[in-house]
């Protein structure tokens, strides 16, 4: 058991045609040994998995079946973690065995393209953290909060089941196939696999989707900072802090990343504490009290400058800060939820679960819940990360399962924690915070009156409670602070103060949460603008070759300005929208994100079919079909629904008619100008929906055609065109999972015995 067969052949293997490098131990655990190890069920192993399954089952039972007054938050942790473990151990293994079929005898791009800079073999556990930090941001923190309108159960089921069957599958497969192609981007893969039409549609869709995503993330920040002097001050301070860190790293102490991150973190904490003091002074409150439109313009100008400044000055240092905060905050939140174990009073299904006119977002559970929660369950944006940096850092092919599938499970867990934080606060406060001003009226009295008039079970809120909550978190008001971030911040402050500090610390924790969400989003805005600018430059470059030169300043500035104006226009539209920007635009964010997922899955479908895997094609087809049905249905509702709250064009027609009838106020729009704004906004939003859905349908159709063609070719015995990089023998070994298996340990020992110089000699590449 576990021994390596002696006298290994040094000729090409008939299976994969790879000739191992002579004089080295095997670079992969022997197939039969690994197989035997995996298939052997010891009593301990059986007991362990039975316990996990049992605990998960009990937790799901507590969440879904038991109808008590309250449910303890710990069941969310158990239900999710146990389901993730089972999904990881069993479902992702099926994907590995039948679809990806990794081969550790084969070198990864980090090995055969090694340059010490972009292509660097990275320890699997470190890369897991690195990949997670790149994919997880504000998205999983915001969507679940908004979706909590429906009650906790629909969101919980979608986040947990969705990630196992869809989100993690997409991330894993895109990562694996990009790795096999030397780290090629999703756009390049689409072009190769789907041809010119499908590839071009995918490229345009990606560009538009990035604009929408950046705009709506920016809208979340604006909503969180509007009329919040404390928030504006502390988030604003991140800019000088990042600049200082940039200069420190460039000129004072190059390469001392850990050191400067700690300094930056201390400064950040000082900025949060200082923000409270500044907002407490008269001049501070006056100076940093900005309305949303001003903040939006500030963000647009900032976005342009940040995207043309050199990376070392602002983006790179803030990225360190953001990563530092990300890992820290998530570990801390998990600990707090486990220690505090808040009781949840929100019902499994709320009164709005069966209606389509909820105040936080409109539309029925299907399909709108599934687009409201994108990140955390299925996020197409990840395909851009999984096909960029990460595949160039993977050490061994088998590790893609841990990093791709496992990394996404981790993000899903973040989404669950955000959901728990959001539902741990009183439901009355939740609705007062998340409904647009048009409904709440903007004051504590009107908001309390409106919330109580909703007739929600167990909800009876007084103006005093709303005023007191605002006071506790150090804000002037918490009414209509939509966008998810403030609600999450209140929930987090509520949990954290029971963990550390008590009520006196609530204001700190609230602004701490706002700070890290803003930090993640600003980094995403910067990076998104830059990536989009390069995509635009390359596209224009096909017609005007000069634009392909990325260092040509006028071209870079012009394309950056175009991108910033594009997302800036959508942002301003959301900020000034009389209907409440988040409420109308957030569905567009989810639809865009999941259409990107559909595009990525469509590309993967074509690749898997071309590899001749037809029996298990359903593993890709299932999430693709689901994402396609959800997003296309949601788009159709947004385009064709006669209900004004749901359909953009219906809303448009209603307001246009009111204007034509000579009315000066209609619904929530109190002036003619506001009514005209609604007409304009809904027209733009409607056409954006049309463009997205048309482009995505083109991509999906071309992918299905490619898959069918591959099937016919296979039936006729014609080889499909393969775009993988040629296989090269690996010269290194590393275990696949977090913990090495006995066979891996044994093989590792063999490698460790190898004299250092022999190992080095054989990894010589130049």
């Amino acid at each position: 058991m576990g021994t390596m067969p002696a006298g290994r052949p040094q000729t090409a293997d008939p299976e994969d045609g790879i000739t191992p490098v002579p004089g080295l131990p095997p670079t992969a655990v022997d197939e039969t040994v690994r197989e035997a190890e995996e298939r052997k069920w010891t009593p301990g192993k059986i007991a362990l998995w039975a316990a996990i399954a049992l605990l998960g089952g009990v937790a799901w039972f507590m969440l879904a079946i038991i109808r008590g007054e309250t449910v303890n938050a710990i069941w969310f942790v158990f239900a999710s973690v146990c389901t993730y473990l089972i999904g990881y151990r069993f479902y992702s293994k099926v994907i590995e065995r039948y679809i990806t079929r990794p081969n550790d005898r084969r070198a990864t791009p980090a090995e055969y393209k090694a340059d010490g800079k972009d292509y660097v073999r990275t320890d699997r556990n470190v890369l897991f953290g690195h990949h997670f930090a790149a994919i997880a941001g504000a998205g999983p923190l915001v969507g679940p909060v908004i979706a909590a309108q429906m009650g906790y159960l629909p969101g919980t089921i979608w986040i947990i089941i969705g990630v196992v069957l869809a989100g993690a599958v997409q991330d894993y497969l895109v990562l694996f196939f990009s790795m096999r192609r030397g780290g090629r981007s999703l756009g390049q893969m689409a072009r190769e696999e789907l041809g010119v039409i499908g590839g071009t549609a995918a490229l345009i869709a990606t560009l538009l989707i990035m604009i929408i995503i950046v705009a709506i993330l920016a809208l979340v920040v604006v909503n969180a900072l509007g009329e919040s002097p404390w928030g504006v001050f502390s988030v604003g301070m991140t800019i000088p802090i990042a600049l200082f860190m940039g200069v420190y790293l460039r000129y004072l102490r190059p390469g001392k990343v850990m050191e400067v991150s700690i300094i930056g973190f201390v400064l950040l904490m000082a900025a949060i504490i200082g923000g409270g003091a500044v907002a407490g002074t008269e001049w501070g409150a006056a100076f940093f009290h900005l309305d949303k439109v001003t903040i939006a313009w500030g963000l647009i100008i900032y976005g342009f400058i940040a995207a043309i400044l050199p990376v070392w000055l602002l983006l790179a240092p803030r990225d360190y800060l953001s990563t530092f905060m990300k890992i820290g905050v998530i570990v801390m939140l998990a600990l707090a939820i486990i220690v505090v174990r808040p009781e949840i009073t929100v019902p499994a299904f709320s009164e709005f679960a069966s209606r389509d006119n909820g105040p936080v977002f409109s539309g029925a559970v299907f399909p709108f819940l599934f687009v409201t929660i994108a990140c955390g369950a299925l996020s197409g944006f990840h395909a851009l990360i999984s096909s960029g940096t990460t595949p160039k850092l993977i050490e061994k092919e088998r590790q893609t399962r841990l990093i791709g599938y496992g990394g996404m499970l981790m993000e899903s867990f973040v989404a669950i924690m955000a959901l728990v934080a959001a539902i741990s606060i009183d439901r009355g406060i939740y609705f007062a915070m998340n409904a647009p001003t048009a409904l709440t009226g903007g004051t504590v009295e009107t908001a309390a009156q409106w919330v109580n008039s909703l007739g929600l079970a167990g909800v009876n809120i007084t103006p005093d409670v709303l005023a007191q909550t605002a006071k506790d978190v150090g804000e002037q008001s918490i009414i209509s602070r939509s966008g998810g971030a403030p609600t999450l911040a209140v929930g987090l402050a509520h949990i954290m103060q029971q963990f550390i500090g008590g009520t006196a610390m609530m204001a700190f924790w609230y602004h701490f949460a706002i700070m890290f969400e803003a930090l993640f989003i600003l980094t995403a805005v910067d990076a998104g603008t830059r990536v989009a600018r390069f995509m635009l430059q390359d596209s224009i470059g096909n017609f005007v070759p000069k634009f392909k030169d990325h260092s040509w300043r006028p071209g870079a500035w012009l394309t950056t300005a175009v991108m910033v104006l594009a997302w800036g226009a959508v942002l301003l539209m959301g900020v000034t929208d009389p209907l409440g920007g988040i409420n109308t635009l957030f569905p567009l964010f989810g639809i865009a994100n999941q259409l990107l997922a559909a595009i990525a899955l469509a590309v993967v479908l074509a690749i898997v079919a071309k590899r001749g895997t037809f029996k298990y094609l359903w593993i890709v087809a299932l999430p693709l079909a689901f994402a396609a049905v959800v997003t296309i249905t949601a788009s159709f509702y947004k385009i064709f629904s006669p209900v004004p709250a749901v359909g953009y064009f219906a809303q448009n027609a209603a307001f246009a008619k009111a204007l034509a009838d000579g009315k000066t106020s209609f619904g929530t729009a109190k002036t003619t100008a506001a009514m005209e704004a609604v007409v304009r906004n809904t027209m733009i939003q409607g056409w954006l929906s049309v463009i997205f859905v048309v482009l995505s349908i083109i991509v999906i159709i071309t992918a299905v055609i490619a898959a069918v063609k591959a099937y016919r070719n296979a039936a006729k015995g014609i080889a499909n065109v393969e775009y993988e990089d040629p296989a090269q023998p690996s010269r290194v070994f590393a275990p696949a999972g977090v913990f090495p298996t006995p066979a891996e340990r044994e093989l590792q020992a063999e490698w460790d015995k190898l004299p250092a110089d022999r190992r080095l000699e054989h990894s010589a590449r130049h």
Partner: protein
Amino acid sequence: MNALLTGLRGFAGFFSGVLGADAYRKYLEHHRDSGHAGPPLTEREFWRDHTDRQDTNPQGRCC
């Protein structure tokens, strides 16, 4: 006590890897292993090049 220190050191190493703080060390390893004739970039040069290359090769950050 020693085990605690090792654990802490391990975590610090992991964390700096996640941040990308060990990029220069890895570059040096690569440089040595690949048998380059010339001397490697200095730490200052390396980090300068590291961020400057990101200017023309932006990396996405997700939502």
